[in-house]
């Protein structure tokens, strides 16, 4: 590990804005998953370890639906439409909701009266079970990925933030006529002497050739300077769609939680589980509602990740995103919905920054480092409020 040379020499500050944008796009997916963690934790005080596996099942659902829509292995269909994407999105969200509710009903609800550690062990068990039982039944070697033809929005656009410096542009403008002139003169000379060529030239033609070469070199270096300066951001349409869809879904969630009856009940349960049930809130149905919403968000994230980024799938597809999203939830303050979004975006940015710094091999470890640091120094997270343990 050579810390300092890397830190100082290898950095390309020009690419920083692009990496930051990439980080935000990556973070949008983490935020979607983190919302599921944070809502379940808010309501049940349970770390839903199996949430990453719900995400994994969402990706597989998208895969199977894309097969059903005619984008199977070796398919030659090349035209797709937004409708296909919507069908995949809704299918993933539905299947994930069902899986989430089933897990809650049969694994977590019977454990509610036991200690939190017992629930946590159950959650770990469910997570391992889905990973390994899934590996028996779902296609995973070689890891399948969704046919990219299903995505009608391929390609990318470029934003120029800072143009190249004026002096560089001026240098090009200066160098161009000279270079053209010299080249033309040399070409004329070659035309006049058909027996000679660029590499086989008589002494008479040599000054012309050299002049042409130096003039061209000058032009090239000026152009290099232009492309090498300036700050541009390449945005792939797919990632832009991920980001926008995530924002829309978060908006819907915000409306659900703050403006509807079940949302209000959910906040009540999250505030105080027992009192809410005493005040006539049907706690069980609210918990089910929470799992439906949280899992649907994870399903949407999974579908988008698998479709627009084409990540290959194994049954461990959800393990790392799940862990990172959990860290995001803790970072933002677990149980806090805006916190999960903030944490998710920060985690995405932190990860791309690690890659930018040249530590791509440690990109997965940063999540755990952030987690430990946050838990040690601000366990309530960035936006959370400290909770006093009542004895």
């Amino acid at each position, binding site marked *: 590990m050579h810390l300092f040379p890397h830190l100082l020499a290898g950095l390309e500050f020009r690419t920083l804005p692009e990496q930051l944008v990439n980080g935000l796009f990556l973070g949008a997916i983490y935020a979607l998953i983190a919302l599921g963690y944070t809502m379940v934790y808010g309501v049940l005080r349970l770390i839903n370890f199996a949430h990453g596996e719900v995400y994994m099942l969402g990706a597989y659902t998208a895969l199977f639906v894309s097969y059903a829509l005619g984008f199977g292995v070796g398919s030659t269909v090349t035209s797709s439409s937004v409708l296909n994407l919507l069908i995949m999105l809704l299918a993933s969200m539905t299947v994930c909701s069902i899986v989430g509710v089933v897990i809650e009903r049969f694994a977590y609800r019977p*454990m509610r009266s*036991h200690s939190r550690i017992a629930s946590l062990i159950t959650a770990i*068990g469910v997570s*391992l*079970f889905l*990973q390994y039982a899934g590996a028996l039944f779902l296609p995973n070697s070689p890891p399948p990925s969704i046919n990219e033809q299903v995505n009608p929005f391929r390609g990318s656009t470029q934003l120029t933030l800072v143009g190249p410096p004026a002096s560089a542009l001026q240098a090009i403008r200066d160098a161009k006529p000279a270079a053209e002139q010299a080249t033309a003169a040399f070409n004329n000379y070659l035309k006049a002497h058909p027996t000679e060529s660029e590499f086989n030239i008589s002494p008479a033609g040599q000054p012309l050739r050299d002049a042409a070469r130096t003039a061209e070199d000058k032009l090239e270096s000026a152009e290099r300077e232009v492309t090498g300066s300036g700050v541009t951001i390449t945005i792939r349409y797919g990632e832009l769609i991920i980001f926008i869809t995530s924002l829309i879904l978060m908006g819907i969630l915000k409306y659900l939680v703050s403006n509807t009856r079940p949302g209000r009940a959910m906040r009540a349960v999250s505030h105080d589980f027992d009192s809410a049930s005493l005040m006539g809130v049907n706690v069980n149905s609210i918990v089910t509602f929470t799992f439906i919403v949280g899992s649907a968000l994870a399903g949407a994230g999974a579908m988008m990740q698998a479709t627009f980024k084409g990540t290959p799938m194994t049954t461990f597809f959800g393990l790392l995103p799940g862990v990172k999203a959990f860290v995001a939830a803790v970072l933002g303050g677990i149980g806090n919905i805006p916190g999960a979004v903030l944490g998710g975006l920060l985690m995405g940015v932190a990860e791309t920054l690690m890659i930018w710094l040249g530590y791509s091999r440690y990109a997965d*470890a940063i999540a755990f480092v952030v*987690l*430990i640091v946050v838990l040690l120094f601000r366990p309530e997270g960035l936006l959370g409020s400290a909770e006093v343990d009542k004895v």
Partner: protein
Amino acid sequence: MKFWTTRIVSFIIGIGGCFVIDLLSHRFVGSYEQRLVVLAGLYVTLAVSLNLINGITGQFSIGHAAFYQIGAYTAGYVSRTYITMGGHNPPAIPWLLGMMVLGAIAASIAGFVVGLPSLRLRGDYLAIVTLGFGEIIRILVQNTDALGGSYALDKIPKIQPIWLVWLLAIVCIAVCRNLIKTARGLTFLAVREDEVASSAMGVDVTSVKVTAFIIGSAFAGAAGALLAHYEGLITPTTFTMDVSFIILTMVVLGGTGSITGSAVAAIFLSYLPEYLRGLKTSAGEPLVVSGAAVIAGLAAVVVGVAFIKRILDSGRGTPRSRALKYLGIAVGVVILEPIISFALHPIKPLSSMSIEAGQLRMVIFAATLIVLMLLRPEGVFAHHEFSWSWVRKLFGKRPVPQAEVAA
């Protein structure tokens, strides 16, 4: 007098047992089974040492593989540098003992580091931090070329005393067992039961927690040193999250807090996958089950668990009638399995899918965790321990007075 007889008998059985295991496994079985015996011994050490942290002190740690890994890599690296690269040739067993101590020290330093957050964090948060710590260690090792990177740390001199593996397990059991019999050990149990109350009673909670982490991780580190010298080659994939979860399953299955339980569960669960892998058809090929059979099995288990859960929750009936009901449910599950399997038969993709029995390993571990938590969260042995008075009772002797039975 009686105290000393039981002590000496235990001591002789313990030490003698190690050499008997060594002798038997060298005399009667091949190298493959010898490896199983060694792994079982290592898993006993790991499970019992994790039990000290998880079960006895109540600090929920799920990153035990990290300490195992630290011990293995430290000892492996030093041994490789000194013996294989340096060309020295020290006597094998003392050297290995030294390496175990080294591995233990390295791991216990890490244990100290992990133990510190436990002062501020409780329950599930601590679990996540230990998990994260385990992953950080693995990723660091994977990216350190001097330790073999993601490939392997190889050319570790092979020193393979089976008796030493089991001696470590016995020592680990003895340390934990004797610890909780002392006044100092009772503070560990007090911290588990109620942290606030025990600190109000004058227990130094900080030192108890950190001590538990240090002792537990030291044993795991020593086990890692043994593993490194037994295999001669270690890779980061030997120490993934799964290993931590397997050790956790052992502790949970045996009963958190029960040393006997951890040891028995460790032997059972380390042998089970090998048993599954070794299952052969009459033609001598690996046993293959269809996807339909697996689904049917899972469904039957779910039904059985649901019924048992209902009986458990209702809490009615004499022990005898309940036992009969459990038996009936077990028989029902066994009958139900082929019926569901037959019903699923028409679904072609399922019935034509073939799954080797060995692949079911982690599925069974996971299912064990869930079913156990649903039906008996305190584990099979709960807080019970093996004791001489229990043996005496088994042979029809009168139980000794309560003071000595307390376990």
